[in-house]
């Protein structure tokens, strides 16, 4: 569990310049076992935010708690010890070039004073978990980006943390490696019951793995929640970022309808009424439907190509009353 309460982080201005407010009163609550994402453009404060969770950065004000312990109240020595129960994965892997894959995985255990035999056993077990058992003796420079990140994940899990922080963990990887690493993160979360906080600027990453997410802009949380709730909202800034509203070609004539597709309100209901009951000709003018957080979500733009529009508004009102999210786009 991760809890940030009214966290502010201000970096003093350089050479008499104005102070930089990186985070401006952020509240974040990630329940135990959740896979949470923080998205936002670069400069929005994401990197600062994730570094606050294990106090690599100290907040200027506000509190940070992980698994029920308020880290901001602890003395430095206890913060150091608490960090070993918070794993962290970085954009550029940050493996030690002087160590083999296995030795990198052993590193945190070595720091904690775990004996050699136990370290060996644990690193073998973890490299097996991330599917790199046969690369145990390889140096980082002999591994691909995806393999390096897998080793880094194994290292982050070595000390059996309850929380895993991922700082743009896939941003330096190609598409195939990204998919592999995300699947691995999801799997270790499931198998080990971890709480994961992931920051990224890639919406596709959030859609692929997160249960919940917040949108950070200029140091403030502007939107957030469980993805299935967020995507069901029409007015959500985060939903608009995850599933951009479709744009229709305005050179083509025809009445347009905007449909917000959710698991509870599938587009089939709308189509059945439009085509089946009203006998209208309907085509898809834009949009997409994807599986996010285990459910179908999407934004569709439908164009009425022919038929009598007389009963349309009444039918749409009826559909909305029954839970469908559909509205006529003002011409």
């Amino acid at each position, binding site marked *: 569990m991760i809890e940030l309460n009214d966290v502010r982080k201000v970096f003093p201005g350089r050479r008499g310049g104005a102070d930089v407010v990186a985070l401006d009163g952020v509240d974040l609550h990630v329940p135990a076992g959740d896979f949470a994402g923080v998205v936002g453009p670069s400069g929005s404060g994401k990197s600062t935010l994730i570094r606050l969770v294990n106090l690599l950065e100290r907040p200027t004000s506000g509190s940070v708690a992980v698994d029920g312990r308020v880290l901001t109240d602890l003395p430095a020595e206890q913060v150091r010890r608490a960090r070993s129960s918070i794993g*962290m994965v*970085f954009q550029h892997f*940050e493996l030690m070039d*002087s160590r083999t894959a296995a030795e990198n995985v052993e590193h945190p255990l070595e720091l904690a004073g775990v004996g050699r035999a136990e370290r060996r056993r644990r690193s073998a077990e973890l490299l097996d978990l991330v599917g790199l058992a046969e690369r145990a003796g390889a140096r980082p420079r002999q591994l691909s980006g995806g393999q390096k990140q897998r080793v880094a994940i194994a290292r982050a899990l070595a*000390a059996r943390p309850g929380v895993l922080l991922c700082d743009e963990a896939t941003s330096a990887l190609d598409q195939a490696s990204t998919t592999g690493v995300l699947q691995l993160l999801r799997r270790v979360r499931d198998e080990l019951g971890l709480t994961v906080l992931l920051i990224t600027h890639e919406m596709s990453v959030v859609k692929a793995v997160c249960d919940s997410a917040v949108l950070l802009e200029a140091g403030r949380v502007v939107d957030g929640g469980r993805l299935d709730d967020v995507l069901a909202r029409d007015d959500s800034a985060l939903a608009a970022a995850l599933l951009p509203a479709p744009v229709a070609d305005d050179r083509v004539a025809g009445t347009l309808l905007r449909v917000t597709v959710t698991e509870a309100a599938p587009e089939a209901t709308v189509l059945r009424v439009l085509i089946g009951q009203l006998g209208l000709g309907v085509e898809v003018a834009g949009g997409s439907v994807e599986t996010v957080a285990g459910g179908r979500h999407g934004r569709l733009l439908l164009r009425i190509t022919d038929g009598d529009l007389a009963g349309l508004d009444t039918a749409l009102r009826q559909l909305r009353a029954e839970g469908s999210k559909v509205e006529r786009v003002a011409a």
Partner: protein
Amino acid sequence: MSDWSRIAPQLADATGETLYMVAVSAVLTVLLGIPLGVLLTVTAPGGLAPLGWTHRVLGLLVNLGRSLPFIILLVLVAPLTRGLVGTTIGSTAAIVPLTVGAVPFLARLVETSLREVSPGKVEAALAMGARRRQVVRTVLLPEALPSLVAGVTVTVVALISYSAMAGAIGGGGLGDFAIRFGYQQFRTDITLLTVVALLVVVQALQFGGDTWARRLARR
């Protein structure tokens, strides 16, 4: 070289003295210079343990040691040498100024090497719960090792050239040999012979250091 049989043993002795002075001062320089370089790095602003004043004072001392011509330093540290060794003459006595001269040199090279270790690796270790001491021992030093080896090699080569100067004030060694037999007796052939002897030593060292550093970097 008709008097070769007379000169050869002297050359051998001189080479031995040079190797002795350089070896002992090199060991001392590594033992003192690496910790000093680490201290310079970690106390720097934005370092692991930023200590503004300590950093500035250490930096000043290092710059002082680096800016003094070695021949002046030889004279300046004479009281220290007398205090430590009992005399200012001889190869053992030369070890003191050699070490004093080389420590700041190596410390700067060590600082440069350590600063090249990516801050991300340091951050990763801190995130694992490393103590600052552990960051130095398990991240900074091992990750910088190839570059540290190169720095030590450069320092030892510098020590050889310093040691020739130490010879001029009674330190013995190849420098002393070249001046006494070559320069003062107008024997250019002996001077050249000394140069060759020095060249062989320097080449061997540089080659050994380069090979080692390259092997470490290729890991």
